[in-house]
């Protein structure tokens, strides 16, 4: 069985997605969970680029534009997420996710 380039790209992105998923599910450190989510976003970006590259009408550049937006949103997500991590740290003196159970500050 031979794989085409597109299939390779998709396999790459799904592997990346699953890595991020596993990290987000298994690690107890909030920062690493955030980074796992970040990896999943990146995997989605890889898909966009792959389908733009091998898709039927690459001249539309929609995939590229979408990735640019995704990067911007991911940057916002990372900034807010890490600010949340710091806020959690100030309240409970560590950043273990399973201990962040209180809604009151």
């Amino acid at each position, binding site marked *: 069985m031979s794989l085409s380039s597109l299939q*390779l790209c998709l396999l790459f992105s799904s*592997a990346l997605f699953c890595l991020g998923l596993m990290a987000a599910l298994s690690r107890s450190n909030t920062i690493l969970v955030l980074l796992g989510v*970040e990896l999943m976003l990146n995997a989605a970006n890889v898909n966009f680029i792959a389908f733009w*590259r*091998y898709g039927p009408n690459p001249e539309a550049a929609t995939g*590229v*534009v979408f990735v640019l937006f995704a990067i911007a949103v991911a940057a916002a997500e990372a900034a807010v997420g890490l600010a949340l991590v710091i806020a959690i740290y100030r309240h409970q003196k560590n950043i273990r996710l399973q201990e962040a159970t209180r809604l009151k500050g």
Partner: protein
Amino acid sequence: MMALILIALVTLASAAAAMLLRNLIHSALLLTASWAGLAAFYLWAGAEFVAFAQVLVYVGAISMVVLFAVLLTRPPQPMPVTPPNTLGRALVALITGGAVLGVFIGAIVSSPLPATAAPAPTVSVKQLGLELAGRHAGALLIVGALLTVALLGAVVLAATDREPVGASLDDVRGRPPGTPLQKSGDAP
């Protein structure tokens, strides 16, 4: 093809190592390497602009934020590892991840995807700019608003509740030069 496989392997390996290591700084740095690998992938695919944006945003900015967060949130003592809990979670994660990966692989291999490697499409920066400012202008505005709000939100969240340190300094700075620090009051 070979280049793609190489890039994918390096990216996946560094991402996997980042997710497995206990040292958070090493994790963050390895993750940065994997982000750089993604930029290499974008370059390979012909999306120059996206690759540079990826490096600028991820390697230049997000990695810094992550490193700052790691250094600002070091626990006073090493976190105690609770094996049963961790093991269970790891097992659940492994099973879920493996299942999702299996579904993905099955779907990818069995779908009738266009197998022809078309000549690499190029999108000029000008074209991209016109797209962004034309068809996607609304989205661009929304993203701008989102980034501004996110910036403000992050500042508010991360800001400490303490009195601003600069307050007392400002009092000192505000006085005309040569006057004593405290008002002399009614002293003769």
